[in-house]
């Protein structure tokens, strides 16, 4: 088993709406991400998947819980050097590449921002060489360095977003819906690029998406989120072949597949949260099979066990 790169324990992220009420965007979530793997996080909008990514990378101050990165504390109050080290080793790729690139900066300066902040290059030449090298890695040419974001197509912009994230040589890259805004024929180019870079640079991905078929293809393990909680976590194939939690089942039954004949008779299950009775018997994450976790109480756990037996 490879090493745990990121450990998230009892992460809570609440947002205050007004003096009285708050939203529990992420409510007591724990998981580990191993070095070199792709960890998929799926759920509907509002499930808290994006919030998890942002809490990990310290865009929000977390309400409770603990994040450890490479065995070191990565949440809460940290020293300046510790913060810089996390900023260098954890990077993020966003959904809309146009919104994350400054329209008034050329590509060279956008990509080199990480170099400048962390003072990774001693001379201007060294800085340029680093930029050209990373552009070549993501499939762009060095001529592109002098251009501005509006001169690129959506797929190319996402490549710039990837180059910008990889320039500091990070260990963990949080991909927040990196392909949702792209056209079908461009999506697979970007996914193949992410896979290639992972192999070459030994990257670890936290891949956040709502497109389940893509998540299945790219991820080693998948966590399904619903209303701020992880309801099921397993290896990608295990989750797809043996989904147990009723929410996971409902989500999977809703994915349209490109096969007209089976599509015409696909039955969809609806998920009704009121089917759980958690008044006396408290639910928690339980391991039902090796590495397959499910959020349930004792009674449900036994029911699931008879189901898979």
């Amino acid at each position, binding site marked *: 088993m490879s090493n745990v790169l990121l450990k998230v324990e009892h992460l809570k992220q609440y947002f205050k709406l007004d003096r009285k009420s708050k939203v529990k965007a992420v409510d007591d979530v724990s998981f580990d991400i191993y070095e070199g793997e792709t960890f998929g996080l799926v759920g509907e909008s509002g499930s808290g998947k994006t919030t998890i990514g942002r809490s990990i990378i310290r865009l929000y101050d977390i309400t409770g819980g603990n994040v450890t990165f490479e065995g070191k504390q990565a949440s809460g109050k940290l020293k300046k050097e510790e913060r810089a080290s996390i900023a260098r080793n954890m990077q993020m790729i966003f959904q809309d590449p146009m919104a994350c690139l400054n329209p008034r900066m050329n590509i060279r300066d956008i990509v080199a921002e990480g170099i400048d902040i962390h003072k990774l290059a001693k001379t201007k030449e060294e800085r340029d060489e680093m930029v050209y090298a990373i552009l070549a890695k993501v499939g762009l040419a060095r001529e592109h360095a002098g251009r501005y974001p509006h001169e690129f197509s959506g797929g190319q912009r996402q490549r710039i977003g990837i180059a910008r994230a990889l320039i500091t040589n990070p260990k963990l890259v949080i991909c927040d819906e990196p392909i949702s805004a792209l056209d*079908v024929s461009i999506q697979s180019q970007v*996914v193949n690029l992410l896979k290639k870079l992972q192999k070459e640079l030994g990257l670890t991905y936290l891949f956040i998406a709502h497109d389940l078929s893509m998540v299945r293809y790219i991820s080693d393990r998948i966590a399904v989120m619903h209303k701020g909680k992880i309801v099921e976590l397993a290896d990608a194939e295990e989750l797809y072949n043996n989904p147990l939690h009723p929410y996971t089942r409902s989500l999977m039954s809703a994915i349209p*597949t490109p096969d007209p004949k089976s599509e015409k008779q696909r039955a969809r299950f609806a998920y009704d949260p009121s089917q759980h009775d958690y008044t006396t018997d408290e639910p928690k994450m339980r391991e039902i099979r090796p590495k397959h976790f499910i959020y349930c109480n004792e009674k449900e756990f036994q029911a699931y066990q008879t189901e898979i037996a």
Partner: protein
Amino acid sequence: MKETVLSVKNLTVSFKTHGGMVQAVRDVSFDLYQGETLAIVGESGSGKSVTSKSIMGLLSPNAVIEKGEILYNGTNLLKLSENDFSKYRGADIAMVFQDPMTSLNPVMTIGDQISESLINNLKYTKEQAKARSLELISLVGIDSPEKRFKQYPHQFSGGMRQRIVIAIALSCNPKILICDEPTTALDVTTQAQILELIKDLQQHFGVSVIFITHDLGVVANMSDRVGVMYAGKIVEIGTVEDVYYDPRHPYTWGLLASIPAFQAKGVELYAIPGAPPQMINPPKGDAFSLRSDWSMKVDFVHQPPMFKISETHSAATWLLHPNAPKVDRPAQLQERINVLMRMHEGGKNE
């Protein structure tokens, strides 16, 4: 048996821009049959939305209709004045847009917005319009219509808003409903509900649907026939079975092969190389030839005509010319089709 309700013939639409004329739709022809769902798939910029906006008469002022006609009940819609067009729009042909928040008026109650078209198009009185609106609200699956009637769009969730938009679209019993990416902004489970609703209502109202999307899974679920658009042209059209189990155009191959749904782990995803062409200067010949692994010399010189494969299926690629060499589909795609065919023949559908 099949009655044509709408016929688009050689539609060609360009847009005036500073850089020159953008040829958004180039010589598109298709028929829409009574009661069917025709899907139009393509990437952004392929001309699918421009085609639907031409049918609705909603093109922006810099659009130029270079040629072609859109026949509805013997009338060429493209020749109508704005005044005459408004008699058809909403009443005979209605449209559902992608983003329900932008197609609803935020400062008008839902009730007023549904009643509006009934009062304007069908000359209902206010009371009649209210009664019908309440009926429509419950028809699209929203509870307590009386209460909802008085609410504003921001009090509804995304899926609920899209239901309201559908209720408005269907309020005047249109013959044709155009859905332009109606579920793209929605979650998968909400998407599934909305698709089911559209299918149910289609049965109920007997309306013919043009369904525009880029999601091939949704197409498989919704439609009877599908037209694949690329660079302003329909490159392949047929029943969903034709196009999914026997695709003939290299672009359709690429689209289908790049879906990860049945893709084994570790195998690289099939990706169409390059990016769609600039439509100010569309390539000579077959617009897809630059990105295709199957291009022949003729593809770079002459545009391929539509070759008929069967009564229902045609595609525009020189590969279908009798003199063209026989080529195979991408191995990954052929493998997947074989698996699906075997599965369906075996009688198991899971």
